[in-house]
Every structure is written in structure tokens, then in C-alpha cells.
């Protein structure tokens, strides 16, 4: 499919950069796309993929660099402009208006109806009615409608962001076949996916982003996935701050928390795991593989649709987060703002779990509270210049408060969801130490992280989840990034279709 006469690229981006305040999201992103080509855009979490996509589609403005369409410089200031020049995206979340019916949505986007209906049936959706209201249709249908809407406006460049994530297998095949056929007719496609099998099936080449820069552009040939994984990780395989080996599972008999065949809707299909006392069990997964549902089910925020949770040999079910807390399960959400009282002081935030114990309604023991809180602050090395309001602390210090309060309160089982997201290295290490300390005190910790490099530093074992199922359990000592990345992408050894 690589052409010989080399026609000029349809879309060419080079040196694209973008800063958000002090954070550099992109510094040298590049992409080249010829007519008839499908290019996979790949990168680990935080590599800058979504920023790059937003810039390409006009949802964000770049700081520097060039984007040329058919050789002409462009600088889109809105998605509407990008559309006019033939670049049509299909985003990860449906972009149809939920309260309008299908026909109104088509009129709103000025999509021609006949071609739209043609693509809808081509993509395998039967009996769609134009007067169906969008919010009554299932998610998979909406994804197909989004794609059909994009195809009907005859794009020159089609951008598909995780198009197949919410689709059942038969629809996935239809979509892949249709996209490949369109490319063979001369359309250019940017294809973003976490699934190597799909990329191998339809893409011509893969452009890899790492730390905000394009680091490689590889033709898709059998066996290329190893190279892609290496490129995504880079040479940054520096050794981690080691912890003393051991921190062994307390030899206190059976597991403390057992999860058996847990399922939540279609996202979390079948997860079983054992969490021992004194253990930090890592959870690794690509975005949206069911980890959110796993944590929310364990925290009592949503009800599982199947399977069971056993704590110290007692089967439990949670109707409310208070039930989970009563059983000793404490959830620290990924979004710090969800777990803290941002306008209140560090003292109050740390004291809160001490005060809010279910069943404790008496007067607050001021002296003991103050000493425990001060003790925690000292051990956390929280920057005390902005004690008055948690929202004035840096992100890292806020995160230390969310975890450190449980040291003061004493915790049984801690559910940490991506605690080190967007935090500097020094603070990260302090957080690893905190987690290890909690485990040493006998607590069990379930630790989801989007950063593979920290697994050996913080965890004893790690379970890898892909597509709602546990695909691997790895001892921390063997959990180098390569192994984890392969497992997280569902590459479990067998050859991929070329």
C-alpha cells in the first residue's frame, strides 16, 4: 500500500508544540499522511496524544509548528474550520446532541441524509429511525452513527479516536472493513487505538509519540509491535528508587479481600484478585479497560452486576460508600478535588476521617486530634506555608494530604486510584514511601497507576486488566515496563494477524 510515485502528503504536521501554564504537553509532534493511507497514532498515557488530536481538529490552538493541508499552511481556530477543509474527526465520546432526534442532528451538522443512511446500513445497523431521540439509543449505535455521519460528508482526512472501544465484535469487523475499503479508494485516515490487533489489520504505518514529541514512524509489518512498545517507552528505563526487598505479605493466613468474577455492566467483565494484609497490589490497565468500575464497585459507589466481594471470609455487598467504609475499604479518587474539602485547612482535612467515623457522634477529643494531625503533617513533610486552604497547596502536597489523612486515622484497606498523576518526582517518591509505610502497618493497598515505571517501586504484585478481564498477574520484581506494556495491550504471546 506504500505508493511508488510518492504523491505530496495530504496532511503534514511538524514541530507542533503546546504548553498549558508550566506544563509542556507537546514540544515536537509531527505527522505525515498521504491519500489512501491509514496511519496509527500511538503513545503511552500522557504522551500528548489527545492534545495533538485536539490541535489537529481545531479544538485547541498550537503554540508553534506547522500544519499543512495539501501544502497550504493552516491554523484552525474551531472544529467548524477544520471540517470545512475536509478533516472530519470521530471523537471517543459521541458528539451527537442527546436531546435531539437523528434527523435534527443531521440537519444541525448539515449532513446529507441519503449517504448517511447508506453508511448506517453498510456499517451494520438495521432499523434505525430518523425520529429516534439520541439519548434513547445504545452507545454502540451512537458510535456507528458518528462514523456514518463523518463518512457521509466525504472527508478527505478521517480521524478515528478509539472508534472501536465500545463496539461488539461483529460491528468492529464491519468498521475495520469499511475504513480499509475507504482508504483503498483514496481517503486518508488517522487511526487511534490501544488495540494492536486492529492496527496490524488495517494500518499502513504507525506514528509514535513519547513525552510530547514524535519519536518514530514505522511501517506496519509482522513483529513491529515490539518496536512500537520500545519506542513508546523510550530509553527512560532508569532504575527506580529501590525499596528494601521483602515487605512480604504478612503470613496471616488467607487473603484479606477476595474479589471473585466481579462484573459491572459491559465495562468490567470478569475480575478476580486476592489482596493480602500488608500487601500493595498494583493494578495496571490502559484507559477505560474497566479499572474505574473495579474501584467504584469496591468503594460502594456502584453496584456490581455479577461476582462477589469477600472480606475476611465474609461475603459483603455495598449499597452506599458508608458500607464499604464500615468494612474498612477506603477509596482515594484519582481526582484530588473529589476527596478533599478544598476551601478548608490542612488540619481539618486530615482530621475529617477521625471525626466522620460511622457511629462516632460524641464530642471531638481536641487534644488527641491535634496531636495526631500534627504528627501526620510532620511525617508527610507537607509544605506548611499554605495550611489555611488546601486548594492553595501544590498538587503533590494535596495528594499527600489525601493519603496522609488515612495514616492519622488508621486504615484497613486503601483503594488508591492513580495517586501520582501529574506530580513531580520527589513527591512521587514520598508517596511511594507513604504507601509502603501503610502496608508495613498491616494495611492492604490496591494501587491503580497509569505510570508503569512506578509499579516496581510501590507494589508487591500487579494485576493487568485488559478489556474488563484480568489478563496477567506479575510479581513486582519481574514487572518491568516492557512486560507490563505488552500485557496491558493484551499481547500475551500469540502471533498477531499481519
Amino acid at each position, binding site marked *: 500500500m506504500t505508493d511508488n510515485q510518492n504523491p505530496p502528503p495530504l496532511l503534514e504536521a511538524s514541530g507542533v508544540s503546546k504548553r498549558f501554564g508550566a506544563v509542556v504537553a507537546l514540544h515536537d509532534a509531527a505527522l505525515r499522511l498521504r491519500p489512501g493511507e491509514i496511519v496509527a497514532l500511538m503513545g503511552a498515557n500522557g504522551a500528548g496524544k489527545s492534545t495533538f488530536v485536539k490541535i489537529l481538529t481545531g*479544538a485547541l490552538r498550537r503554540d508553534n509548528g506547522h500544519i499543512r493541508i495539501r501544502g497550504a499552511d493552516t491554523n484552525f481556530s*474551531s*472544529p*467548524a474550520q477544520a*471540517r470545512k477543509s475536509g478533516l472530519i*474527526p470521530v*471523537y471517543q465520546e*459521541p*458528539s*451527537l*446532541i*442527546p*436531546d*435531539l432526534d437523528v434527523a*435534527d*442532528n443531521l*440537519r*444541525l*451538522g*448539515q449532513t446529507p441524509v441519503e449517504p448517511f443512511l447508506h453508511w448506517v446500513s453498510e456499517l451494520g445497523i438495521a432499523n434505525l429511525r430518523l*425520529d429516534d431521540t439520541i439519548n*434513547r439509543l445504545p452507545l454502540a449505535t451512537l458510535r456507528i452513527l458518528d462514523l456514518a455521519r463523518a463518512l457521509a460528508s466525504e472527508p478527505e482526512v478521517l480521524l478515528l479516536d478509539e472508534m472501536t472501544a465500545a463496539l461488539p465484535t461483529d460491528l468492529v469487523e464491519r468498521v475495520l472493513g469499511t475504513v480499509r475499503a475507504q482508504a483503498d479508494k483514496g481517503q486518508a485516515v488517522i487511526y487511534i487505538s490501544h488495540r494492536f490487533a486492529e492496527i496490524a489489520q488495517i494500518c499502513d504505518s504507525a506514528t509514535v509519540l513519547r513525552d510530547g514529541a514524535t519519536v518514530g514512524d514505522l511501517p506496519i509489518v509482522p513483529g513491529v509491535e515490539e518496536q512500537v512498545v520500545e519506542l513508546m517507552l523510550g530509553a527512560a528505563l532508569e532504575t527506580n528508587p529501590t525499596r528494601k526487598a521483602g515487605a512480604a505479605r504478612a503470613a496471616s493466613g488467607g487473603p484479606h479481600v477476595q474479589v471473585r468474577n466481579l462484573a459491572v455492566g459491559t465495562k468490567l467483565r470478569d475480575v478476580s484478585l486476592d489482596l493480602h494484609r500488608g500487601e500493595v497490589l498494583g493494578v495496571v490497565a490502559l484507559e477505560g479497560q474497566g479499572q474505574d468500575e473495579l474501584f467504584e464497585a469496591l468503594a460502594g459507589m456502584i453496584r456490581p452486576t455479577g461476582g462477589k466481594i469477600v472480606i475476611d471470609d465474609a461475603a459483603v455487598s455495598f449499597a452506599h460508600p458508608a458500607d464499604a467504609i464500615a468494612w474498612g475499604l477506603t477509596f482515594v479518587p484519582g481526582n484530588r478535588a473529589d476527596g478533599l474539602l478544598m476551601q478548608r485547612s490542612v488540619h481539618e482535612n486530615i482530621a475529617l476521617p477521625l471525626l466522620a467515623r460511622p457511629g462516632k457522634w460524641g464530642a471531638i477529643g481536641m487534644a488527641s486530634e491535634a496531636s495526631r494531625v500534627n504528627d501526620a503533617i510532620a511525617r508527610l513533610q507537607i509544605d506548611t506555608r499554605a495550611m489555611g486552604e488546601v486548594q492553595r497547596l501544590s498538587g503533590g502536597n494535596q495528594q499527600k494530604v489525601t493519603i496522609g489523612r488515612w495514616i492519622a486515622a488508621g486504615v484497613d484497606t486503601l483503594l488508591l486510584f492513580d495517586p501520582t498523576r501529574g506530580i513531580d518526582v520527589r513527591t512521587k517518591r514520598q508517596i511511594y514511601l507513604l504507601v509502603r509505610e501503610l502496608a508495613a502497618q498491616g494495611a492492604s493497598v490496591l494501587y491503580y497507576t497509569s505510570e508503569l515505571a512506578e509499579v516496581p517501586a510501590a507494589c508487591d504484585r500487579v494485576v493487568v486488566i485488559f478489556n474488563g478481564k484480568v489478563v496477567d498477574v506479575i510479581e513486582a520484581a519481574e514487572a518491568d515496563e516492557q512486560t507490563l506494556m505488552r500485557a496491558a495491550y493484551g499481547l500475551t504471546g500469540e502471533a498477531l494477524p499481519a
Partner: protein
Amino acid sequence: MSRIVARHGWTLGLLAILVLLFAFTKVIQPNFGPTGLDSLSRATLPFAFATAAMAIVVIAGGIDLSVASMMAVAGVTTAVMMDGAGTGMTLFTVVAVLVIGLGMGAINGALIVVTRVPDIVVTLAMLFVWEGVALLILKAPGGAATPWLREIIVGPFLVPWLPKSFVFLVVCLAVVWIPLRRSRLGLSIYAIGSDELAAYRSGIAIGRTRIIAYALCGLFAAMGGLTLTMSTGNGEPIPGPYLMASVAAVVLGGVVLGGGKGALLGPIIAVFILRLVRMDLTLMSVDPNVTTIVEGTIMVVVVMIGGVLAMRGRRQ
């Protein structure tokens, strides 16, 4: 057929309630006739326009607390300009007041879009601003409306049971709403209220659409102020009780606070229901303080029942 019922269930339900209320009124007041209907309809007019004004911004995902104040500005402007005016000046005044309404609404919308201050704060501030403007134009109730204008909204139209004021209301709303509802602009107003991100991605100019929605709100408010002066014959600079009444009718009429859902018909039926309930309670000589309690209770109960029905519909 069942789809039509399902889609317009809320409006049909309100219509049924309205019919029952009329029957009830006839029972407690056997001589309720065309005259009673005419005065009910005329008294409801300014409330109906305020409700239409509120409905359009709520559909667009906003709210406008300055509706009653804008009505006051439009009302006193009408009274001052029409005082002793001839036919030409009268027609000019009508057009000018409608344009002023569009302008006031556009200023509200532009302030929200440009300053990014929340709509509820901006329009609360503008509530005071427009109230002050109305008092600057006319310090005390006064001015006059051209007498023949009043004839447009008094008495029956063709048949005894059809008040002119009701026909006037339907025509005024339909002229703006029906073309709008089917246009791309109208869809855009629903879209930004329904899901702003999806609307942005569909290529809709969010800011411009929002300003237009507020401008149309101002237009309906101006119609309301105009009719108020038309029916009373003079201008009143202090805003009437139209703000909370319009929010109540909008909510009861099936427009979801938060945006994207509903239309004008439901809120207009709702405003008649609320006025009729008030009239019936007065006829039954219920304590006026109890009347407001009854009105509040009706709102919560009806909206709650609607929520339960919607949830059941989704489960099936």
C-alpha cells in the same frame, strides 16, 4: 400514534389537567362564561410572554432573572412614547419597543458570553440595572397607551368563546417560534442547552447562539411589557411578579432547568393552569396565603410525577 403520545406526553397531560380545571371552574361557578374567559386570558397575557421569554433561555441551558425588569422597561417606554401619539407614532413605538427588547436581551447575552460570569449572576445584576432604567424613564405610574391598541386584546374573536387576547398571544408566539423551531438556529439553541461540548464539536458557534437566545428572550419580554401597557392603559416602572411565575410555568411546562428539553406549548399551557388555579381558589374564597402554598405544592407534585413516569418509560 403511540410514538406521538410518548413524545408529547407531558404536553398532553398538561392539556388534560387544564380541561379538568375548566370543568371544575364551571362546577364551582356555574355562570363562568365568555366574559370570565376573556378576563382570564387577558390577565394571563403578560405572564405568558414572560414564560415564553424564560423558556427560550432555559432551553438554551441558561436562565434570565431580569425578565420582569425588561418588561418594565418595555412597558414604560411604550407608555411614554404613545402618550398622545397618532397612528404613525403608535406603530413606530411598537417596532421601537420590540427592537429595544432584542437589544436588552442581546446585552444580557453578550455580557454572559464575553465576561464568562455565570448567567445567574449577570442577569441578577441586570435585574437591578433594567429596573433602574425603567424608573429613569418614568418615575411614577403614568403615560398612556393608544386607545385603539386596547381593542386588539379586549372582547371575543369571531365566536363568543374565543378571546381576542388569546388569538393575539398565539399569533405573536407563533410568528417567532414556528420558523425558529425548524431552523438551524433553533436546533442550535436546543443543542447548546443539551450538550455544549457536542454542539461545539458539531461546528456550532456557541457564543453567538447564546446571545441570540437571550435576545429572543428580550424580544418576548418586550412583547409582555407592551401588552401590559396596552391592557392597563398606563406604564408601571416597578416590575411585576413575573420572574418567579415564569420560572414556575417553565418548569411545570416540561422545560428542564439545565436545558435541551421542552418547547413553548407546554409552558404556555402551564401558565394558564397556574392562573386558573389561582382564580378558582379566589372564587372558593380561600385565604390568599394558602393559595401560594397550593401553587407550590402543585409544582413539586406534578414535576415529581413526571420524573417517575419518565423513569418508568426508560426502564421498559
